[in-house]
């Protein structure tokens, strides 16, 4: 996932830079100067840093806020709807429906989702808050939303790889929270 890679790199570079600055400050540059002369020079650097920081923040905001996962912000129209309900401590997923509400999958067999089709997960909870987190076979969390009683969170996602995906609960929900696991198959 590109976002995770970028986050990791930003963090690594940032931590190194912050430690270098701290080390530089502690190492005690010489000679000793008056507060006035140091402050005057630092204020100039601070002005440039402020402009640079603002530019970076504005660019980052414009890039990241154009890619929001919320239903009203997603241009893709889902082809199928997948109801999801969290209960202590298990998941009820399906049956998958088309946009008119007709079930796609007959019977109560294992949940199979279509590959390459935009799906709208309609996620809610019956009792307490849960978190609907989907992991791929490599163990990467690929998408998630909260499952909250009284609300339906609509998550649009298209699976691009076939295989078995794991669903974990991502919101602490009581003493068997860690066992609230199920699988879905994509083919």
């Amino acid at each position: 996932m590109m976002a995770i890679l970028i986050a990791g790199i930003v963090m690594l570079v940032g931590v190194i830079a912050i430690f270098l600055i701290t080390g530089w400050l502690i190492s005690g540059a010489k000679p000793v100067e008056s507060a006035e002369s140091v402050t005057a020079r630092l204020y100039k650097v601070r002005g440039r840093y402020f402009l640079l920081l603002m530019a970076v923040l504005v660019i980052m905001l414009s890039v990241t806020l154009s890619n929001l996962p919320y239903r009203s912000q997603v241009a893709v129209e889902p082809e199928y709807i997948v109801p999801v309900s969290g209960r202590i401590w298990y998941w009820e997923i399906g049956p998958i429906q088309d946009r008119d509400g007709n079930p796609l999958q007959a019977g109560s067999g294992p949940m199979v989702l279509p590959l390459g089709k935009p799906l709208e997960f309609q996620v809610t909870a019956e009792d307490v808050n849960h978190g609907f987190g989907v992991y791929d076979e490599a163990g990467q969390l690929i998408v998630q939303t909260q499952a909250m009683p009284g609300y339906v969170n609509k998550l649009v996602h298209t699976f691009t790889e076939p295989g078995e995906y794991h669903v974990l609960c991502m919101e602490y929900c009581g003493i068997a929270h860690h066992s609230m696991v199920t699988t879905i198959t994509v083919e």
Partner: protein
Amino acid sequence: MSSDTGQGRGVRLWAGAYSITALIVFVVLVVLGLIMRLSQSGVVAVPADYFYAIMTLHGLGMAGVLYTAGYAAIWFLASKYVQPNMALMRFNFVLILLGVVGLIAATLIGRFGPGWYMLYPLPFLPTWPTWSIGLAVISVMLLGVAWLLGQLDVLRVIVGRYGLTGMLGWQYLGKGELREDLPPVVLIIAVSMIAGAVTTIVGAVMLMLYLAQWLAPELQFDALLMKNAVFLFGHTLVNITMYCGVAVVYELLPTFSGRPWKTNRIVALSWNAVLLLVLVAFFHHLYMDFAQPVAFQVFGQLASFFSAVPATVVTIFGVMAQVYRSGIRWSFVPLSMILGLTGWVIGGLAAVVDSTIAVNIFFHNTMWVPAHFHTYFLVGFVFILFGFIYQLVGSKSELMGKLSLGTMLAGGYGFLLMFYLGGLESVPRRFADYSSIGISSVMEFGQMSALVAALCVAVFIIGLLLYYTAVFRSLGAWLARIRMDN
């Protein structure tokens, strides 16, 4: 920072009582954290109900004790300029102790375990006994009452001396002549206590609704509204704890650098901006609640991003102006201050990364979340607090102090690294064990990183004990000095 800074005998004694109590509670809570990581590693088998009860106590306890210690520190520093009510400080100590005892009983005996932010309606799950729910809610209410009274009292005396707009430094924003300098520590305390009081009132309302539901279980409240309320209260409490630490640095560092740190237009503007940003940044806790209005989500990211501006532009450059080519002698106290601010900035960077909605979808409720707030606290606020307490009791054990700092630094960052790597590897947080997870790579990394983290916590505890030795052996002389001052 003893009698020469103007604080009286009672002020020093009560700041000491709060600080020493905080140190004792802190190490116990660290040990609870160690037990949790050992359980997650699979080395120690802690039953799930105990694990989550311990997790709840660890979280509530840490948030509470660190805020309380931070409050005691700024109360002490504020006492140089204003006179907060001493009787209230004593009364609050009793109230807080009662709250802590109640929480210990509810969690360790009742196994009440909904996690520190007690997300509605989880506390009312019939998994734990009904009495433990009521006891926990009442205990947190006692803490909330003590915190709110303390916040209002400090605001009362600061407004009395500096005025409502004066304490916020608005006189620096115009062109009029200054009648009295506003110490930056007072400005930061004012901002923190306003944010604290406003949001603690929200927390109080929420807790009263909890109490109502405990008494009348048929009641039902809106889960999304309650989630907003709990994070407005909880997030802000944690944030202002850090600001209490920053206030300590603003006040103490100049005594070592020999350079004044004054409020000016930029400092005043910056901390007023902080007051606004801190009240809306909590929305980032609800990014994965897709039913939340999109505007709130965007506010959350904007506020979280722009909070980096005052933090770095003013505070970090202020610290640089304090120490660069100042000839400062890096004794334990200034060293712990600058290392604490380093932890604050690193934790802040991790928070900004996670407060990006497009990133949060991969990091929300993974180990990245405890990674960032443990950075703020463990190698941020705690280092600053330790510096403050060292200075308060007048400890002179420089060698032992620095040895402890180095050990805590190594153990602390090693412990945090495991959290960050866990986040990058999608390891979910708040799992009693990873064996039932069904994904071998996540399970193995979760267990391995928990074991390494536990070893690092053990190293941190060694550093902690060295620090405690240095502080506790200074207590006798500290008390004797207070008696002599009298």
